[in-house]
């Protein structure tokens, strides 16, 4: 049997979780770039993404899973635009604090709207249960490999958008300073909307991957996972997508190694401790460079 003990395996589990955290952290940091506030409602997009797929699979079992996931990602992406338009844009000029506190309210509304529809029962996705296969000395199930692949692909896509499309350049310009971008003739309203689609869509995908890995899940899992995503985002430096990816890997590994070698009862605490230390030592995050 595959030797599942040891540091290598812990790192593997860490990387698997890191792929989910990274997607969430990149999405959060992108939306921070253009909205300039830390969105406490972000976790709910993960839950809505996951439960949209659960719902689609339930009503149309014939629907292939990848298609259901794509529909969910797009749907939650536009939901992000709607939420931003309804709750955040109208007070966008009022500074970060009112937006942050409003996001707490939005988190309550989105979370308990989902509970009202789906009740609090735990749900899971039709994903086959597999035994890990040995691969370079560590155990990894094909499903886990797919999850890492999908996450890597999604981040490659986001990287592509940022670097090689006009939208990407405009997004990076706006994320620096929204007023400046408006003065420079950029239609910042459109940029903000498109950024929200990508940000909320990434969250939905993260939510689906989370559910594939850690089913069954309850509709309230998003808020609980928020702090892990915050840790990765801030570790990488708020507003920096590449930083967020690096931060996610570190947080995923910290949780997994911490649980394996210290005590599994404090797994969340390890991510929190890393987060608080980072906030105190280097609030601008660990990654050099501005983006």
């Amino acid at each position, binding site marked *: 049997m595959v030797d599942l003990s040891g540091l290598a395996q812990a790192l593997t589990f860490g990387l698997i979780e890191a792929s989910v955290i990274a997607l969430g952290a990149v999405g959060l940091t992108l939306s921070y770039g253009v909205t300039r506030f830390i969105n406490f409602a972000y976790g709910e997009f993960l839950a809505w993404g996951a439960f949209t797929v659960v719902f689609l699979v339930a009503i149309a079992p014939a629907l292939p899973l990848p298609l259901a996931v794509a529909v969910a990602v797009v749907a939650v992406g536009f939901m992000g635009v709607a939420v931003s338009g309804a709750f955040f844009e109208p007070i966008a000029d009022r500074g970060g604090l009112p937006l942050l506190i409003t996001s707490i309210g939005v988190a309550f509304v989105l979370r308990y709207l989902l509970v009202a529809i789906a009740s609090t029962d735990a749900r*899971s996705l039709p994903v086959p249960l597999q035994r890990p296969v040995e691969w370079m000395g560590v155990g990894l199930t094909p499903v886990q490999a797919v999850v890492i692949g999908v996450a890597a692909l999604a981040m490659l896509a986001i990287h592509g958008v940022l670097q090689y499309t006009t939208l990407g350049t405009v997004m990076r310009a706006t994320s620096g300073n929204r007023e400046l971008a408006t003065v420079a003739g950029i239609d910042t309203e459109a940029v903000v909307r498109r950024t929200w689609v990508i940000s909320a869509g990434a969250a939905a995908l993260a939510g689906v991957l989370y559910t594939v890995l*850690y089913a*069954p899940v309850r509709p309230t899992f998003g808020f609980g996972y928020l702090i892990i995503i915050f840790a990765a985002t801030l570790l990488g430096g708020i507003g920096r997508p590449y930083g967020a990816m690096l931060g996610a890997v570190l947080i995923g590994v910290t949780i*997994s190694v911490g649980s394996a070698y210290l005590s599994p009862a404090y797994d969340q605490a390890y991510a929190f401790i890393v987060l608080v230390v980072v906030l105190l030592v280097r609030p601008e995050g660990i990654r050099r460079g501005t983006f």
Partner: protein
Amino acid sequence: MGLLAGCTGGDGGEGSADPLTVGVLVPFSGDYAWVGANVLPVVQMVAEEVNAAGGIGGRQLRVVQGDTEALPDASLSATQQLISVEEVAGIIGPTSLTYSAVADLFVENGVPTVTPTAGTTTLDTQGGEYVYRTVPSDSIGGRAIAAAAREERINGIGSFGSMALMVGQREVYQSFKEPIGSSFTEFGGTVVSELDFRTGKASYESEVQALTDAAPEITALVASIEDSVKIMEAAYQAGYEGSWFLTQDQTNVDFLSQSEAVVTDGALGIQEAPYEAAQADGRAAAFDEAIQAYAGWEETRLFATNAYDAANLLFLAMHKGQVDDGAVDRASTAANVRAVAAPDGTVVTDFDSGAAAISEGTAVDYRGLVGPIDFNEFGDIAAPFSIRRADGDSWVEAGRVRPADL
């Protein structure tokens, strides 16, 4: 005309006497909302049957919800709402989660309380005067698990020598740990490891790693359905070869449907044995059919039979008070709960037959779906347990544990 005129504590239709209010004091929100969903329909069904037969002393029964939200402060105001505003004649509930926060109010206000769910060992020595329960204490349940694990005769697999205790960090689960562990050792087994884990985690690889290191022959897994699915699947992936022993929470079809046979097959579970008498005369089957139709369930859910017995006991106790002193009051009802279940009375198995007998002045002994319902001094019952084994997507009975065996 105000839309919600007379909205609270209204006196119901014209002419008929005041309704007789009964409170259902369980969580209806939060992570334990499923408890409310399982218990409420049963109490409503029984109340409707009683009302159809003319109610108690001509008064219709009114069932009121008290949402404890599984939080102490919420349960306190919910209990106060039931006792002082709704002026309930009796209460079905509470759960182990909030019992200690509200126990004082039951005793102080003399409110008869029959809990169908609270197996917590903290209640083992506190009930008996106002608080009764139609669910066996976890200490008996735990002991039954230990006995079954040791006896191949009962579990049909083998006599397990080494056991690991894997228990979620919540009172409702921890309450099983000591009874299982100490009984298993008492019956000659050895507990090789005790693993307490934080409930509601994303994944449990590290905990499963510790389990495979301990390599027990069997693991007693006391947790929610959600966490049990995660742990057993992670263990399957980690190559765990030992058996599993689950508790009432997981021994149902819903749990099996959430995972695959290759993981769950051969797992042992425990349920209160359907009382042979109830099975023999078809009452158990009749109840299953009635409640599944009434509540729209596909299987009889956890605590349903306990709620049925709790409701019948409470209503019979009220009826006895009505017959003996012409009125229903809390103190007499509390005493009557024990009286209507006393072993020396004539056996009755539902409200109609019991009420009729009481009206004629004969002492009755209510025997329910869960068991003979013979209260000890603390208002606890002993009940026979059915040891089940998972086979595909259903549970097969492997053996029985009688209260005498423990």
